């Protein structure tokens, strides 16, 4: 049985359909990523799966319970890390955990033996009495993550868990999320960091304009949707040079696209392209393997979404 499944999920706000027929299946123990540009419908999909908003159509099952009808019961075994921290600013670090545990019917006495482990997990050992206002952004994020674990959930939803964090804080969160996966917890996270998705997720779905447009393991998505090698060329040598080289590149690579003053060439072999560059000394280039970000941009386009 799936930890989470959704079929034909729909949700509209007025005339605007933000989720238009989403199908999802997340196996127990899996780390599943939902990727998409801003406004793709990721957060709305999470809220629907949690039973916080009424779907316009479709079926959801969360940990064996039909949602939204028995969402409250399902949430007993679910943790949530929201996009924006909503810790209780009037309480200390430890009080935040204790008060939150009570919402799940866990008394202070029951939670007490686990508090030090939760603080350790959050990298906040010895900071139990600290005020929330004295914590850094990364600390707050980790405490929010620890708070989501007070009920020892089977499944944790995370909405952009590392947005706004510096690299150190981000790497620590990634390490903790891997620990959770190793403990057998199911994770469902949204992100627009491809690197994060590639590192953490067993499987992911790319979402755009309320639909899932591709689904699979990170490797499979790259293999399926994009050529393995990428050559990025940009130059200060003037429009003429760039145009001239691009004409030549088009005969040597299966896919060439220009964005601003950068030309992206995708292909199986880019050696002929590299050789051709030797006669254009004013152009500089970057040769790299294709990544999930290339897949993402190919599928969702390069236009800004705000």
């Amino acid at each position, binding site marked *: 049985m799936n930890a989470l499944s959704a079929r034909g999920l729909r949700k509209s*706000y007025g005339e605007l359909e933000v989720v238009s027929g989403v199908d999802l299946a997340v196996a127990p123990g899996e780390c599943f990523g939902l990727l998409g540009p801003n406004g793709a419908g990721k957060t709305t999909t999470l809220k629907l799966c*949690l039973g*916080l*908003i*009424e779907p316009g159509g479709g079926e959801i099952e969360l940990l064996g319970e039909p949602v939204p009808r028995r969402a*409250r*019961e399902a*949430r*007993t075994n*679910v*943790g*949530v890390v*929201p996009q*924006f921290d*909503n*810790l*209780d*600013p*009037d*309480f200390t670090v430890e*009080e935040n955990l204790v*008060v*939150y545990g*009570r*919402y*799940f*019917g866990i008394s202070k006495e029951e939670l007490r033996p686990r508090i030090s482990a939760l603080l350790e997990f959050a990298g906040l050992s010895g900071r139990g009495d600290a005020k929330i206002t004295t914590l850094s952004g990364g600390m707050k994020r980790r405490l929010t993550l620890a708070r*989501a674990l007070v*009920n020892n959930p089977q499944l944790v939803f995370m909405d952009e868990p590392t947005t706004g964090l510096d690299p150190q804080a981000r790497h620590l969160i990634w390490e903790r999320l891997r620990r959770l996966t190793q403990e057998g917890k199911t994770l469902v996270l949204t992100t627009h960091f491809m690197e994060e998705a590639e590192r953490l997720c067993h499987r992911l779905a790319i979402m755009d304009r309320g639909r899932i447009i591709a689904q699979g393991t990170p490797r499979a998505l790259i293999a399926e949707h994009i050529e393995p090698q990428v050559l990025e060329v940009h130059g200060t040598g003037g429009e003429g040079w760039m145009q001239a080289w691009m004409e030549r590149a088009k005969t040597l690579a299966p896919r060439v696209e220009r964005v601003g003053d950068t030309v992206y060439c995708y292909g199986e072999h880019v050696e002929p392209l590299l050789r051709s560059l030797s006669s254009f000394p004013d152009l500089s280039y970057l040769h790299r393997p294709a990544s999930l970000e290339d897949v993402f941009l190919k599928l969702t386009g390069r236009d800004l979404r705000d």
Partner: protein
Amino acid sequence: MTLRWCHVWRRNMLVWRKLMAAAILSNLADPLIMLFGLGYGLGALLPSVEGMSYIAFFAAGQLCTATMFTASFESMFSGFSRMHGQKTWDAILYAPLVIDDIVAGEIVWAASKAWLTGSTILGVAVVFGLASSPWVLLALPAAFLVGLAFSAVGLIMCVLARGWDFFSYYMTLVMTPMMMISGVFFPADQLPGPLLAVAKALPLYHGVQIVRPLVAGGPPPDLWLHAAVLLAYAAAGYALAIYFARRRFSS
């Protein structure tokens, strides 16, 4: 009926306990200054009103008014801060609680805080000899009922509000005029008929009608009628607050 709302009540109580001194001061200082300032100052110029000293007459009205203000401020401003500013309600909704639990917890909490204001004013009135009959003990549950009615109505405002300014309308257009026509400062009977009819349709008047006879030392006439109006406001307010809260949160 579940008791899940107790968790919400308890959360608010724990925060209040941390900031207790300031909270009690702000809820009590104003009404007590008014009570003694107007009661003794203006009272010195007046003969007895309805067979009571003016300050005892005013104490009953002031008990209800202060209870109304505490309940309304807590459910509107503090409630909105928790709901909208801190997103505390969102965090609670990830747990196995639903919006109805939060609405119930917030209303009972605001009523509890208002009851504390009302009962402290009652205590002060007793200490200063403004009320001495055992009947006055019934003002304690009455104050809670007044608190429930205004907390429930205040919470409707809270879940309807799009911003802080919204509450100014309710306070200026509803609460202030209500305070003037509900028999707080002077007997409501001397109002022109239509205004008295408006007062009778509003909850504060009925709170005063219960508390004033108790302060004077006897059973309030039409006690059950007045209590029923307050209960009706509490019940209708609760139902409407749930309706609008569901609409706000589940759409």
